[in-house]
Protein backbone atom coordinates (compact mmCIF):
# COMPACT_ATOMS: atom_id res chain seq x y z
CA UNK A 1 0.00 0.00 0.00
CA UNK A 2 1.27 3.46 -0.82
CA UNK A 3 2.44 5.30 2.24
CA UNK A 4 2.63 9.06 2.52
CA UNK A 5 6.11 10.29 1.90
CA UNK A 6 7.76 13.64 1.33
CA UNK A 7 9.31 14.58 -2.00
CA UNK A 8 12.73 14.32 -0.35
CA UNK A 9 11.99 10.87 1.08
CA UNK A 10 10.90 9.58 -2.32
CA UNK A 11 13.97 10.89 -4.09
CA UNK A 12 16.15 9.75 -1.17
CA UNK A 13 14.97 6.18 -1.73
CA UNK A 14 16.30 6.20 -5.30
CA UNK A 15 19.88 5.25 -6.14
CA UNK A 16 22.39 6.32 -8.75
CA UNK A 17 22.52 4.00 -11.76
CA UNK A 18 18.81 3.16 -11.56
CA UNK A 19 16.40 2.98 -14.47
CA UNK A 20 13.59 5.43 -13.74
CA UNK A 21 10.35 5.74 -15.70
CA UNK A 22 8.56 9.07 -15.81
CA UNK A 23 4.86 9.30 -16.70
CA UNK A 24 3.02 12.00 -18.63
CA UNK A 25 3.59 12.79 -22.30
CA UNK A 26 5.76 15.54 -23.79
CA UNK A 27 5.05 18.65 -21.74
CA UNK A 28 1.88 17.22 -20.18
CA UNK A 29 1.17 16.10 -16.60
CA UNK A 30 4.80 15.45 -15.74
CA UNK A 31 5.76 14.83 -12.09
CA UNK A 32 7.84 18.01 -12.13
CA UNK A 33 8.05 18.40 -8.32
CA UNK A 34 9.73 14.99 -8.16
CA UNK A 35 11.86 15.78 -11.22
CA UNK A 36 12.99 19.05 -9.62
CA UNK A 37 13.93 17.12 -6.48
CA UNK A 38 15.98 14.65 -8.56
CA UNK A 39 17.56 17.71 -10.18
CA UNK A 40 18.65 18.95 -6.72
CA UNK A 41 19.76 15.49 -5.52
CA UNK A 42 23.14 13.79 -5.67
CA UNK A 43 21.79 11.04 -7.96
CA UNK A 44 23.79 10.35 -11.14
CA UNK A 45 24.09 7.84 -13.97
CA UNK A 46 20.32 7.44 -14.39
CA UNK A 47 18.53 5.78 -17.28
CA UNK A 48 15.33 7.74 -17.92
CA UNK A 49 12.40 6.00 -19.66
CA UNK A 50 9.88 8.57 -20.83
CA UNK A 51 7.57 9.98 -23.48
CA UNK A 52 9.97 12.84 -23.02
CA UNK A 53 9.37 16.46 -22.18
CA UNK A 54 10.99 18.95 -19.78
CA UNK A 55 11.53 16.06 -17.32
CA UNK A 56 14.17 14.65 -19.66
CA UNK A 57 15.51 18.13 -20.47
CA UNK A 58 15.93 19.24 -16.86
CA UNK A 59 17.67 16.03 -15.81
CA UNK A 60 19.98 16.20 -18.83
CA UNK A 61 20.80 19.81 -17.91
CA UNK A 62 21.69 18.69 -14.39
CA UNK A 63 24.00 15.94 -15.64
CA UNK A 64 21.91 13.24 -13.97
CA UNK A 65 21.34 11.14 -17.06
CA UNK A 66 23.49 8.48 -18.67
CA UNK A 67 20.84 7.20 -21.06
CA UNK A 68 17.48 8.39 -22.36
CA UNK A 69 15.00 5.77 -23.59
CA UNK A 70 12.28 7.59 -25.55
CA UNK A 71 10.39 7.92 -28.84
CA UNK A 72 10.64 11.74 -28.70
CA UNK A 73 11.50 14.63 -26.44
CA UNK A 74 9.34 17.72 -26.95
CA UNK A 75 7.69 20.63 -25.17
CA UNK A 76 4.61 20.30 -27.48
CA UNK A 77 3.92 24.00 -28.09
CA UNK A 78 7.68 24.40 -28.50
CA UNK A 79 8.65 21.54 -30.75
CA UNK A 80 12.22 20.86 -29.64
CA UNK A 81 13.47 20.45 -26.05
CA UNK A 82 16.58 22.65 -25.79
CA UNK A 83 18.47 20.81 -23.02
CA UNK A 84 17.94 17.39 -24.56
CA UNK A 85 19.09 18.75 -27.93
CA UNK A 86 22.21 20.24 -26.38
CA UNK A 87 23.04 17.02 -24.54
CA UNK A 88 22.62 14.96 -27.71
CA UNK A 89 24.61 17.40 -29.83
CA UNK A 90 27.43 17.45 -27.26
CA UNK A 91 27.31 13.67 -27.03
CA UNK A 92 26.83 13.72 -23.26
CA UNK A 93 23.84 11.34 -23.12
CA UNK A 94 23.25 7.95 -24.70
CA UNK A 95 19.94 7.48 -26.45
CA UNK A 96 17.75 4.45 -27.06
CA UNK A 97 15.24 5.63 -29.62
CA UNK A 98 11.89 3.88 -30.13
CA UNK A 99 8.81 4.41 -32.23
CA UNK A 100 6.07 5.62 -29.85
CA UNK A 101 3.89 2.56 -30.47
CA UNK A 102 6.89 0.25 -29.96
CA UNK A 103 7.54 2.07 -26.70
CA UNK A 104 3.99 1.36 -25.50
CA UNK A 105 4.46 -2.32 -26.38
CA UNK A 106 7.63 -2.27 -24.25
CA UNK A 107 5.62 -0.91 -21.32
CA UNK A 108 2.85 -3.47 -21.91
CA UNK A 109 5.39 -6.31 -22.03
CA UNK A 110 6.94 -5.18 -18.75
CA UNK A 111 3.51 -4.73 -17.13
CA UNK A 112 2.59 -8.28 -18.20
CA UNK A 113 5.95 -9.72 -17.12
CA UNK A 114 6.65 -10.81 -20.69
CA UNK A 115 10.15 -10.63 -22.22
CA UNK A 116 8.85 -8.88 -25.35
CA UNK A 117 5.81 -8.15 -27.49
CA UNK A 118 5.72 -8.27 -31.29
CA UNK A 119 4.81 -5.35 -33.52
CA UNK A 120 5.21 -4.19 -37.12
CA UNK A 121 6.31 -0.73 -35.98
CA UNK A 122 10.00 -0.26 -36.64
CA UNK A 123 10.30 -2.61 -39.64
CA UNK A 124 12.18 -0.94 -42.48
CA UNK A 125 13.06 2.15 -40.41
CA UNK A 126 16.39 3.22 -38.96
CA UNK A 127 15.15 2.46 -35.45
CA UNK A 128 16.47 -1.04 -36.15
CA UNK A 129 19.85 0.44 -37.17
CA UNK A 130 20.33 2.87 -34.30
CA UNK A 131 19.19 0.30 -31.72
CA UNK A 132 21.34 -2.67 -32.72
CA UNK A 133 20.06 -4.55 -29.66
CA UNK A 134 16.57 -4.85 -31.19
CA UNK A 135 15.71 -8.33 -32.46
CA UNK A 136 12.99 -9.62 -34.75
CA UNK A 137 10.84 -12.69 -34.18
CA UNK A 138 9.05 -14.94 -36.68
CA UNK A 139 5.39 -15.78 -36.13
CA UNK A 140 5.06 -19.49 -35.23
CA UNK A 141 1.73 -19.64 -37.11
CA UNK A 142 1.08 -20.26 -40.79
CA UNK A 143 1.67 -16.62 -41.77
CA UNK A 144 5.33 -16.89 -40.69
CA UNK A 145 5.54 -13.09 -40.58
CA UNK A 146 8.68 -11.46 -39.24
CA UNK A 147 8.01 -8.81 -36.60
CA UNK A 148 9.95 -6.60 -34.22
CA UNK A 149 10.30 -8.13 -30.73
CA UNK A 150 10.06 -5.07 -28.48
CA UNK A 151 11.89 -5.86 -25.23
CA UNK A 152 10.09 -5.23 -21.95
CA UNK A 153 10.77 -1.73 -20.61
CA UNK A 154 11.24 -2.80 -17.01
CA UNK A 155 12.22 -0.08 -14.54
CA UNK A 156 13.50 0.12 -11.00
CA UNK A 157 11.09 2.92 -10.20
CA UNK A 158 8.43 5.02 -11.88
CA UNK A 159 7.35 8.58 -11.07
CA UNK A 160 3.85 9.71 -12.10
CA UNK A 161 1.79 12.81 -11.39
CA UNK A 162 -1.98 12.65 -10.98
CA UNK A 163 -4.64 15.24 -10.28
CA UNK A 164 -5.99 13.63 -7.13
CA UNK A 165 -4.80 10.75 -4.94
CA UNK A 166 -5.80 9.36 -1.59
CA UNK A 167 -3.47 8.74 1.31
CA UNK A 168 -3.30 5.05 0.37
CA UNK A 169 -1.86 5.86 -3.04
CA UNK A 170 -4.92 5.39 -5.27
CA UNK A 171 -4.82 8.00 -8.01
CA UNK A 172 -7.34 9.67 -10.31
CA UNK A 173 -6.71 11.73 -13.45
CA UNK A 174 -9.08 14.55 -14.41
CA UNK A 175 -7.86 15.56 -17.87
CA UNK A 176 -8.89 13.97 -21.18
CA UNK A 177 -5.91 11.61 -21.42
CA UNK A 178 -4.51 9.01 -18.99
CA UNK A 179 -1.32 8.87 -21.07
CA UNK A 180 0.48 5.65 -20.06
CA UNK A 181 0.77 6.37 -16.33
CA UNK A 182 -0.84 3.15 -15.15
CA UNK A 183 1.47 1.18 -17.45
CA UNK A 184 4.50 2.91 -15.93
CA UNK A 185 3.15 2.00 -12.47
CA UNK A 186 2.70 -1.64 -13.49
CA UNK A 187 6.01 -1.89 -15.36
CA UNK A 188 8.17 -0.59 -12.50
CA UNK A 189 9.42 -2.36 -9.38
CA UNK A 190 8.27 0.62 -7.35
CA UNK A 191 5.98 3.48 -8.31
CA UNK A 192 5.78 6.86 -6.61
CA UNK A 193 2.73 9.07 -7.15
CA UNK A 194 2.67 12.82 -6.68
CA UNK A 195 -0.67 14.58 -6.82
CA UNK A 196 -2.06 18.09 -7.03
CA UNK A 197 -4.49 17.35 -4.19
CA UNK A 198 -4.62 14.58 -1.60
CA UNK A 199 -7.82 13.27 -0.01
CA UNK A 200 -8.78 10.64 2.55
CA UNK A 201 -9.65 7.11 1.38
CA UNK A 202 -13.19 6.98 0.03
CA UNK A 203 -13.15 10.66 -0.95
CA UNK A 204 -11.89 10.23 -4.52
CA UNK A 205 -15.23 11.35 -5.95
CA UNK A 206 -15.69 10.99 -9.71
CA UNK A 207 -16.30 8.41 -12.44
CA UNK A 208 -14.69 5.10 -11.43
CA UNK A 209 -12.96 4.69 -14.80
CA UNK A 210 -10.77 7.71 -14.00
CA UNK A 211 -9.23 5.82 -11.06
CA UNK A 212 -6.10 5.19 -13.09
CA UNK A 213 -3.52 3.99 -10.58
CA UNK A 214 -4.20 1.48 -7.82
CA UNK A 215 -2.46 1.41 -4.45
CA UNK A 216 -1.43 -2.19 -5.18
CA UNK A 217 1.23 -0.74 -7.51
CA UNK A 218 2.17 2.30 -5.45
CA UNK A 219 5.03 2.48 -2.95
CA UNK A 220 4.73 6.10 -1.93
CA UNK A 221 2.41 9.06 -2.46
CA UNK A 222 2.94 12.76 -1.90
CA UNK A 223 0.79 15.87 -2.26
CA UNK A 224 2.55 18.47 -4.42
CA UNK A 225 0.29 21.45 -5.25
CA UNK A 226 1.35 22.75 -8.68
CA UNK A 227 3.68 19.74 -8.77
CA UNK A 228 3.05 19.38 -12.50
CA UNK A 229 3.97 23.00 -13.23
CA UNK A 230 4.79 24.14 -15.89
CA UNK A 231 3.39 21.20 -17.89
CA UNK A 232 -0.22 20.76 -19.03
CA UNK A 233 -2.67 19.68 -16.32
CA UNK A 234 -5.90 19.26 -18.29
CA UNK A 235 -8.32 22.09 -17.49
CA UNK A 236 -5.59 24.09 -15.77
CA UNK A 237 -3.58 24.03 -18.99
CA UNK A 238 0.12 24.63 -19.39
CA UNK A 239 1.95 27.73 -18.15
CA UNK A 240 2.97 28.68 -21.67
CA UNK A 241 4.63 31.95 -20.62
CA UNK A 242 6.81 30.17 -18.10
CA UNK A 243 7.59 27.35 -20.54
CA UNK A 244 8.76 30.00 -23.04
CA UNK A 245 10.93 31.49 -20.30
CA UNK A 246 12.37 28.03 -19.57
CA UNK A 247 13.17 27.38 -23.24
CA UNK A 248 14.60 30.85 -23.85
CA UNK A 249 16.80 30.59 -20.74
CA UNK A 250 18.06 27.18 -21.87
CA UNK A 251 19.42 28.69 -25.07
CA UNK A 252 22.13 30.66 -23.24
CA UNK A 253 24.46 29.43 -20.44
CA UNK A 254 24.29 32.66 -18.45
CA UNK A 255 20.53 32.92 -18.71
CA UNK A 256 20.23 29.27 -17.71
CA UNK A 257 22.44 29.80 -14.64
CA UNK A 258 20.15 32.64 -13.60
CA UNK A 259 17.05 30.49 -14.21
CA UNK A 260 18.45 27.57 -12.24
CA UNK A 261 19.53 29.84 -9.40
CA UNK A 262 16.16 31.51 -9.20
CA UNK A 263 13.84 28.51 -9.63
CA UNK A 264 15.66 25.24 -9.05
CA UNK A 265 17.88 25.58 -5.99
CA UNK A 266 15.18 25.65 -3.32
CA UNK A 267 12.31 23.32 -2.40
CA UNK A 268 8.83 23.28 -3.94
CA UNK A 269 7.56 26.09 -1.75
CA UNK A 270 10.45 28.26 -2.87
CA UNK A 271 9.73 27.26 -6.49
CA UNK A 272 6.07 28.25 -6.27
CA UNK A 273 6.97 31.55 -4.67
CA UNK A 274 9.61 32.30 -7.30
CA UNK A 275 7.18 31.47 -10.12
CA UNK A 276 4.49 33.71 -8.57
CA UNK A 277 6.95 36.57 -8.32
CA UNK A 278 8.12 36.04 -11.88
CA UNK A 279 4.54 36.25 -13.13
CA UNK A 280 3.95 39.43 -11.15
CA UNK A 281 7.07 41.02 -12.63
CA UNK A 282 6.09 39.96 -16.12
CA UNK A 283 2.58 41.25 -15.54
CA UNK A 284 0.89 37.98 -16.52
Amino acid at each position, binding site marked *: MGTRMSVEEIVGSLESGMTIGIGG*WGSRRKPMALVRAVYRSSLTDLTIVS*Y*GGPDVGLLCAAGKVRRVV*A*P*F*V*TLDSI*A*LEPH*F*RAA*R*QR*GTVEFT*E*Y*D*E*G*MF*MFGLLAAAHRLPFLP*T*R*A*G*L*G*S*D*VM*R*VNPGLRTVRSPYD*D*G*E*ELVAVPALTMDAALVHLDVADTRGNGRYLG*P*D*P*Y*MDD*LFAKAAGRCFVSCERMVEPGELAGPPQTLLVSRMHVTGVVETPDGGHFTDLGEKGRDEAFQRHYAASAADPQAWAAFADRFLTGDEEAYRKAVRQWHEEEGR
Partner: protein
Amino acid sequence: MSATRAEICVVACAEAWRGDGEILAAAMGTCSILGARLARLTFEPGLLTTDGGALLTAEAVPIGAPAGAAEGWLPFREHLWLVQNGRRHVMMGASQIDRYGNTNISAIGDWTRPKSQLLGVRGAPGNTICNPTSYWIPRQSTRVFVPKVDVVSGVGHDRAAGLGPEAARFHDLRRVVTDLAVFDFATPDGSMRLVSVHPGIEVEQVRAATGFDLVVEGEVPETRQPTGEELRLIREVLDPRSLREREVKP
Protein backbone atom coordinates in the same frame (compact mmCIF):
# COMPACT_ATOMS: atom_id res chain seq x y z
CA MET B 1 -12.33 36.18 -54.76
CA SER B 2 -8.98 34.62 -55.59
CA ALA B 3 -7.40 32.08 -53.26
CA THR B 4 -4.12 32.61 -51.42
CA ARG B 5 -1.30 30.07 -51.66
CA ALA B 6 -2.15 28.85 -48.15
CA GLU B 7 -5.76 28.25 -49.19
CA ILE B 8 -4.64 26.29 -52.25
CA CYS B 9 -2.45 24.21 -49.91
CA VAL B 10 -5.40 23.56 -47.57
CA VAL B 11 -7.47 22.24 -50.47
CA ALA B 12 -4.54 20.16 -51.79
CA CYS B 13 -4.16 18.63 -48.32
CA ALA B 14 -7.91 17.96 -48.15
CA GLU B 15 -7.68 16.08 -51.47
CA ALA B 16 -5.32 13.56 -49.81
CA TRP B 17 -8.29 12.12 -47.91
CA ARG B 18 -10.65 11.91 -50.92
CA GLY B 19 -12.22 8.47 -51.14
CA ASP B 20 -11.07 7.39 -47.67
CA GLY B 21 -14.55 7.01 -46.17
CA GLU B 22 -15.05 6.34 -42.49
CA ILE B 23 -11.54 6.47 -41.06
CA LEU B 24 -9.55 8.85 -38.87
CA ALA B 25 -7.94 11.74 -40.73
CA ALA B 26 -4.89 12.35 -38.53
CA ALA B 27 -3.26 15.65 -39.43
CA MET B 28 -0.18 17.57 -38.34
CA GLY B 29 0.46 21.20 -39.26
CA THR B 30 -2.07 23.99 -39.76
CA CYS B 31 -2.91 23.50 -43.47
CA SER B 32 -3.10 19.75 -43.00
CA ILE B 33 -5.48 20.04 -40.02
CA LEU B 34 -7.61 22.52 -41.98
CA GLY B 35 -7.52 20.16 -44.96
CA ALA B 36 -8.83 17.21 -42.94
CA ARG B 37 -11.69 19.29 -41.54
CA LEU B 38 -12.49 20.82 -44.93
CA ALA B 39 -12.62 17.36 -46.56
CA ARG B 40 -15.07 16.28 -43.85
CA LEU B 41 -17.26 19.35 -44.40
CA THR B 42 -17.36 18.84 -48.16
CA PHE B 43 -16.57 15.76 -50.24
CA GLU B 44 -15.62 13.22 -47.53
CA PRO B 45 -18.29 13.51 -44.82
CA GLY B 46 -17.54 10.11 -43.28
CA LEU B 47 -14.10 11.15 -42.02
CA LEU B 48 -13.37 11.32 -38.30
CA THR B 49 -11.38 14.27 -37.00
CA THR B 50 -9.95 15.20 -33.60
CA ASP B 51 -9.71 18.39 -31.57
CA GLY B 52 -5.92 18.04 -31.75
CA GLY B 53 -6.14 16.22 -28.42
CA ALA B 54 -7.94 13.15 -27.10
CA LEU B 55 -11.41 13.82 -28.51
CA LEU B 56 -13.07 12.75 -31.74
CA THR B 57 -15.26 15.74 -32.41
CA ALA B 58 -18.92 15.35 -33.36
CA GLU B 59 -18.46 18.12 -35.93
CA ALA B 60 -15.45 19.58 -37.73
CA VAL B 61 -14.50 22.45 -35.40
CA PRO B 62 -12.51 25.62 -36.16
CA ILE B 63 -8.78 25.31 -35.59
CA GLY B 64 -7.84 26.04 -31.99
CA ALA B 65 -11.49 26.11 -30.87
CA PRO B 66 -12.87 23.93 -28.06
CA ALA B 67 -13.87 20.45 -29.22
CA GLY B 68 -17.59 20.96 -28.60
CA ALA B 69 -19.54 17.70 -28.47
CA ALA B 70 -17.41 14.56 -28.76
CA GLU B 71 -18.33 11.45 -30.74
CA GLY B 72 -15.44 9.42 -29.43
CA TRP B 73 -12.41 9.23 -27.16
CA LEU B 74 -8.94 8.76 -28.57
CA PRO B 75 -6.28 9.26 -25.90
CA PHE B 76 -2.70 8.53 -26.93
CA ARG B 77 -2.87 4.84 -26.00
CA GLU B 78 -5.95 4.37 -28.22
CA HIS B 79 -4.36 6.43 -30.97
CA LEU B 80 -1.30 4.15 -30.91
CA TRP B 81 -3.62 1.15 -31.00
CA LEU B 82 -5.44 2.66 -34.01
CA VAL B 83 -2.11 2.97 -35.85
CA GLN B 84 -1.72 -0.82 -35.60
CA ASN B 85 -5.38 -1.35 -36.46
CA GLY B 86 -5.08 0.76 -39.60
CA ARG B 87 -8.39 2.63 -39.90
CA ARG B 88 -6.46 5.85 -40.22
CA HIS B 89 -4.74 8.00 -42.86
CA VAL B 90 -2.09 10.23 -41.37
CA MET B 91 -0.59 13.38 -42.90
CA MET B 92 2.73 13.99 -41.16
CA GLY B 93 5.46 16.59 -41.41
CA ALA B 94 9.05 15.81 -42.39
CA SER B 95 12.36 17.62 -41.95
CA GLN B 96 13.87 15.57 -44.79
CA ILE B 97 12.29 13.45 -47.53
CA ASP B 98 13.92 11.51 -50.37
CA ARG B 99 12.72 10.37 -53.80
CA TYR B 100 11.27 7.12 -52.42
CA GLY B 101 9.41 8.89 -49.61
CA ASN B 102 11.76 7.96 -46.78
CA THR B 103 11.43 10.76 -44.21
CA ASN B 104 13.37 12.02 -41.21
CA ILE B 105 12.10 13.84 -38.11
CA SER B 106 14.69 12.36 -35.73
CA ALA B 107 18.08 14.02 -36.16
CA ILE B 108 20.23 15.78 -38.76
CA GLY B 109 23.72 14.41 -39.32
CA ASP B 110 25.21 11.31 -37.73
CA TRP B 111 22.64 9.81 -35.34
CA THR B 112 25.27 8.91 -32.74
CA ARG B 113 26.15 12.59 -32.32
CA PRO B 114 23.76 14.66 -34.38
CA LYS B 115 24.53 18.06 -35.78
CA SER B 116 20.93 18.89 -34.92
CA GLN B 117 18.75 16.76 -32.67
CA LEU B 118 15.13 16.98 -33.76
CA LEU B 119 12.04 15.37 -32.21
CA GLY B 120 12.96 11.71 -32.37
CA VAL B 121 11.23 9.27 -34.70
CA ARG B 122 7.92 9.69 -32.81
CA GLY B 123 5.25 7.54 -34.50
CA ALA B 124 6.70 7.70 -38.01
CA PRO B 125 8.00 4.10 -38.24
CA GLY B 126 4.69 2.62 -37.10
CA ASN B 127 2.55 5.05 -39.08
CA THR B 128 4.25 4.28 -42.37
CA ILE B 129 4.32 0.50 -41.98
CA CYS B 130 0.75 0.20 -40.65
CA ASN B 131 -1.54 2.71 -42.38
CA PRO B 132 -1.85 5.12 -45.30
CA THR B 133 0.53 8.05 -44.96
CA SER B 134 0.82 11.42 -46.69
CA TYR B 135 3.04 14.38 -45.95
CA TRP B 136 2.49 18.13 -45.61
CA ILE B 137 5.67 20.20 -46.00
CA PRO B 138 5.06 23.96 -45.67
CA ARG B 139 8.40 25.05 -47.11
CA GLN B 140 9.88 22.95 -49.88
CA SER B 141 13.62 23.36 -50.46
CA THR B 142 16.69 21.30 -51.28
CA ARG B 143 17.34 21.12 -47.53
CA VAL B 144 14.10 19.17 -47.13
CA PHE B 145 13.91 17.33 -50.47
CA VAL B 146 17.28 15.56 -50.15
CA PRO B 147 19.02 12.73 -52.02
CA LYS B 148 19.24 10.67 -48.84
CA VAL B 149 17.68 11.29 -45.42
CA ASP B 150 19.99 11.05 -42.41
CA VAL B 151 17.73 8.90 -40.20
CA VAL B 152 14.87 6.94 -41.76
CA SER B 153 11.92 7.65 -39.47
CA GLY B 154 9.11 7.17 -42.01
CA VAL B 155 9.59 4.20 -44.34
CA GLY B 156 9.77 4.86 -48.09
CA HIS B 157 9.00 2.61 -51.07
CA ASP B 158 12.51 1.18 -51.55
CA ARG B 159 12.74 0.24 -47.87
CA ALA B 160 9.24 -1.25 -47.88
CA ALA B 161 10.00 -3.27 -51.01
CA GLY B 162 13.11 -4.62 -49.28
CA LEU B 163 10.92 -6.02 -46.49
CA GLY B 164 8.95 -8.21 -48.89
CA PRO B 165 5.22 -8.21 -49.63
CA GLU B 166 4.18 -9.80 -46.31
CA ALA B 167 5.75 -7.25 -43.98
CA ALA B 168 4.97 -4.33 -46.30
CA ARG B 169 1.36 -5.21 -47.05
CA PHE B 170 -0.02 -2.22 -45.14
CA HIS B 171 2.65 0.22 -46.37
CA ASP B 172 0.79 2.84 -48.43
CA LEU B 173 2.46 6.18 -49.16
CA ARG B 174 -0.14 8.38 -50.83
CA ARG B 175 0.98 11.91 -51.57
CA VAL B 176 3.17 14.83 -50.59
CA VAL B 177 1.81 18.37 -50.53
CA THR B 178 4.17 21.34 -50.25
CA ASP B 179 3.86 25.10 -50.62
CA LEU B 180 4.86 24.67 -54.27
CA ALA B 181 3.26 21.50 -55.58
CA VAL B 182 1.63 18.10 -55.12
CA PHE B 183 3.52 14.81 -55.58
CA ASP B 184 2.70 11.11 -55.56
CA PHE B 185 4.67 7.88 -56.03
CA ALA B 186 2.79 6.38 -59.00
CA THR B 187 5.93 5.26 -60.82
CA PRO B 188 7.24 1.73 -61.53
CA ASP B 189 9.88 1.93 -58.79
CA GLY B 190 7.81 4.04 -56.35
CA SER B 191 9.86 7.18 -56.77
CA MET B 192 8.33 10.62 -56.40
CA ARG B 193 6.35 12.14 -59.28
CA LEU B 194 5.15 15.69 -59.76
CA VAL B 195 1.35 15.62 -59.92
CA SER B 196 0.54 19.32 -60.10
CA VAL B 197 2.07 22.72 -59.45
CA HIS B 198 0.23 25.38 -57.48
CA PRO B 199 -1.06 28.37 -59.48
CA GLY B 200 1.77 30.83 -60.16
CA ILE B 201 4.51 28.21 -59.65
CA GLU B 202 6.70 26.97 -62.53
CA VAL B 203 7.87 23.37 -62.86
CA GLU B 204 11.45 24.67 -62.91
CA GLN B 205 10.91 26.30 -59.51
CA VAL B 206 9.83 22.95 -58.12
CA ARG B 207 12.85 21.22 -59.67
CA ALA B 208 15.16 23.86 -58.19
CA ALA B 209 13.71 23.19 -54.74
CA THR B 210 14.21 19.42 -55.09
CA GLY B 211 17.54 17.78 -54.30
CA PHE B 212 16.90 14.60 -56.27
CA ASP B 213 15.72 13.48 -59.70
CA LEU B 214 12.01 14.19 -59.82
CA VAL B 215 9.76 12.29 -62.20
CA VAL B 216 7.98 14.84 -64.40
CA GLU B 217 5.69 13.42 -67.07
CA GLY B 218 4.56 15.67 -69.94
CA GLU B 219 2.54 18.79 -69.29
CA VAL B 220 2.09 19.22 -65.55
CA PRO B 221 -1.38 20.49 -64.60
CA GLU B 222 -2.11 23.23 -62.10
CA THR B 223 -3.28 22.29 -58.61
CA ARG B 224 -7.00 22.90 -58.53
CA GLN B 225 -8.40 26.16 -57.14
CA PRO B 226 -10.69 26.09 -54.11
CA THR B 227 -14.39 26.42 -54.90
CA GLY B 228 -16.30 29.42 -53.57
CA GLU B 229 -17.87 27.22 -50.90
CA GLU B 230 -14.47 25.82 -49.87
CA LEU B 231 -13.08 29.34 -49.53
CA ARG B 232 -16.06 30.35 -47.42
CA LEU B 233 -15.60 27.34 -45.13
CA ILE B 234 -11.86 27.99 -44.75
CA ARG B 235 -12.18 31.74 -44.15
CA GLU B 236 -15.41 32.01 -42.18
CA VAL B 237 -15.77 28.66 -40.42
CA LEU B 238 -12.51 26.73 -39.97
CA ASP B 239 -9.82 29.42 -39.75
CA PRO B 240 -11.28 32.89 -39.14
CA ARG B 241 -7.99 33.98 -37.49
CA SER B 242 -6.04 33.14 -40.69
CA LEU B 243 -3.48 30.91 -38.96
CA ARG B 244 -2.93 29.30 -42.39
CA GLU B 245 -1.31 32.47 -43.70
CA ARG B 246 1.38 32.23 -41.00
CA GLU B 247 2.32 28.74 -42.15
CA VAL B 248 2.50 29.51 -45.88
CA LYS B 249 3.64 32.95 -46.93
CA PRO B 250 1.91 34.42 -50.03
